């Protein structure tokens, strides 16, 4: 016990003495979460639009006004020719060009169907399809108005038929804001990066400096060394965890609907599984450079891309979905979003919680076994 205690004190002292390190470990998560939390927003709030109005009548202007007033469209340009319009798209200046045909008003008055072309800069498929949805909605409403007006004007008796209308209720996040979804995800990612990069250096650093050799010669046991490293880093990880949780709830005002203590508990399991992974990397690496590259490419990148933090796992091919089962971050993000946004608890999340626990324990045991007190 005494040995482990002295080890912990030593690690904490080293951490305390390294001012730059301390600053990065504590300040970086705060800054990152705040900046990235604001940035991680897939809401298509403003669609940069150009209009090519070949009709220039009261009706076409009214049609355009509908877009302006919707609040989603910023009409940045009025194109004077078709070439002009295509140029805007080529240069990436607008996402969509709405082309109003020549006899727009005349044809509508004649009760004929007019075609309105919408040209999309489609490279961002996601934004394009959401923008198309907005345009469809606005056009439908405008059409409906014209139909009603025509009916009133000409007294045409349009037969009534039965109709279906969707009544959509969005649960958990009625405004479909992406921020509430992204901030917990980013919190998970930041927690992962901080703890993993700290831990992956822990052993290999001493190996490179030469102190590990000195330690191996002492009667210290492998498990004492592992615990001596793990406990202080868990403490640091826990502080980081509390900091990011506070920012999420206090700064971003995201209300934790479920039990915050359960959240803290699962987060701790997650931190442990990351530390285990870091320890594993640290014990198998020969140099710090190897450890860093391995932790970035073999662990962090897959976790970031495949955990469902930004890219929905449901959209991935089946094979890749199987890979995602290996990632602790995936389970943690599911738990995190479940507790924070849905307010569910252990009864709905026990599978994920158990897997996270199993992974943490498993990885730690493997790393301790892998760390033999021999050097080659």
């Amino acid at each position, binding site marked *: 016990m005494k040995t482990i205690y002295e080890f912990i004190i030593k690690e904490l002292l080293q951490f305390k003495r390294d001012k730059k390190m301390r600053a990065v470990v504590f300040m970086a998560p705060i800054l990152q979460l705040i900046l990235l939390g604001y940035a991680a927003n897939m809401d298509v709030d403003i669609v940069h639009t150009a209009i090519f109005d070949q009709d220039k009548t009261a009706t076409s202007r009214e049609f355009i006004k509908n877009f302006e007033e919707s609040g989603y469209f910023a009409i940045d340009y009025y194109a004077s020719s078709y070439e002009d319009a295509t140029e805007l798209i080529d240069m990436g200046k607008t996402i969509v060009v709405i082309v109003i045909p020549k006899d727009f008003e005349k044809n509508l008055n004649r009760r004929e169907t007019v075609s309105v072309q919408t040209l999309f800069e489609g490279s961002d498929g996601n934004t394009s399809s959401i923008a198309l949805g907005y345009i469809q909605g606005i056009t439908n409403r405008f059409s409906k108005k014209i139909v009603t007006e025509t009916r009133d004007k000409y007294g045409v008796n349009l037969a009534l038929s039965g109709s279906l209308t969707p009544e*959509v209720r969005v649960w958990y996040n009625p405004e479909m804001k992406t921020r509430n979804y992204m901030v917990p995800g980013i919190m998970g990612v930041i927690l992962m990066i901080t703890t993993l990069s700290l831990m992956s250096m822990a052993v290999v650093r001493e190996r490179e400096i030469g102190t590990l050799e000195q330690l191996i010669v002492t009667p210290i046991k492998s498990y004492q060394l592992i615990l001596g490293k793990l406990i202080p880093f868990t403490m640091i990880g826990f502080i980081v965890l509390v900091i990011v949780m506070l920012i999420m709830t206090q700064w971003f005002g995201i209300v934790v609907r479920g039990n915050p203590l359960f959240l803290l508990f699962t987060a701790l399991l997650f931190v442990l599984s990351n530390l285990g992974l870091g320890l594993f990397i640290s014990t198998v690496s020969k140099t710090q450079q190897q450890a860093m590259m391995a932790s970035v490419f073999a662990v962090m990148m897959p976790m970031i891309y495949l955990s469902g933090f930004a890219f929905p796992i449901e959209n991935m091919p089946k094979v890749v979905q199987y890979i995602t089962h290996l990632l602790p971050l995936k389970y943690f993000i599911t738990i995190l979003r479940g507790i924070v946004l849905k307010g569910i608890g252990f009864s709905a999340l026990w599978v994920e919680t158990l897997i996270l626990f199993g992974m943490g324990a498993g990885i730690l045991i493997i790393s301790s076994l892998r760390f033999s007190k021999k050097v080659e």
Partner: protein
Amino acid sequence: MFHRIYAIAKKEFRQLKRDTRMLFIVFFFPVVLLAIFGYAINFDVKHIKVAVYDQDKSDYTREYLNGLVSSEYFDIVTHIDSDDEIKRLLDEKIVQAVIVFPNDLSRRLNNNEEVKVQYLVDGVDGNTANVIVNYVNAATYSYSLKLTKEYLAVKGKEIYVPINLEPRFWFNPELESTKFLIPGLMGMILIITAVISVSLSIVREKERGTIEQINVSPLSSLELIIGKTAPYIMISLINAAIVLLAGYLLFGIVIKGDIFLLLFSTLIFLFAALGLGIFISSIADSQQVAFQAANVTSLLPSLILSGFIFPIESMPAVIQWVTNITPAKFYIVSLRAILLRGVGISAFWEQLIYLMIFGVIFISLAALVDRKAKAA
């Protein structure tokens, strides 16, 4: 001057060549990651898992559901008999949406009344929810339109649709997000390789004290830096080529624009990224600090602040300003212009200028810090 740079570069190459693990990580992982991530990352919402609570069980509801299933957008996972189950299904993410048909659906349709089909959508992922809502609206309106058409046809009348939207999607007609995202992935992989490996390789010499040996030699710091970064520029270029080739073979991404322009932009981007790496190495005095700093400035920012997945226009003004800290932002714009739109340099020359300025600023800052350190 040249032979001294050559000597340093040769030494760096030799050290790299000997570190086979490192080479493996640097060359093997980017390709594997591109392959897996390329398939995995997309926002193309398909096969939405739905549960059906059909209280009517009529020909109408069967026809409606057949329409849903025949598109590849919806998969009916389960049928339920009471609304008690809805909460559990959504809570535990078993389905993404639940459709509820009221029990008087066919009666009211036959009476030419309006009927509401209720959809309960999991809104946790706002972006996906938005897309689901769009699909649901479209599916319901089109079925309703079909019913109306049939009804009017019986009465010998025609339906009047005033405006017909003709959407055209350029560059990416299928609106696949993969094509949009791969340039971003490329930028991220390159920046990580460049920033982390360069900052580490310089700080490593600092840590081991070998840099003092070099400092007393007639090498200028410029020569040292060029010599040390040259191998990494080559590695990054080879990486870029491999990633592009993989992009073509696996995802059919053809370089629409000029390949020399691509090479040129990539070189300028690498210059900026290396500038950042050199700056980090000037302020960090241990590999551990350099690693953390490189992570903070390049890992998440190149994903979240670069416009890779989150549109920069949707960010608050302050954050939009902050996005300039990641050179990936400028590179991704250029890359998309060359790869997807195939346009010339006139569409993105500003980006390249920014990258140059970025590189120059950070290298000057590094020189400044270095001079101060030597004076102290």
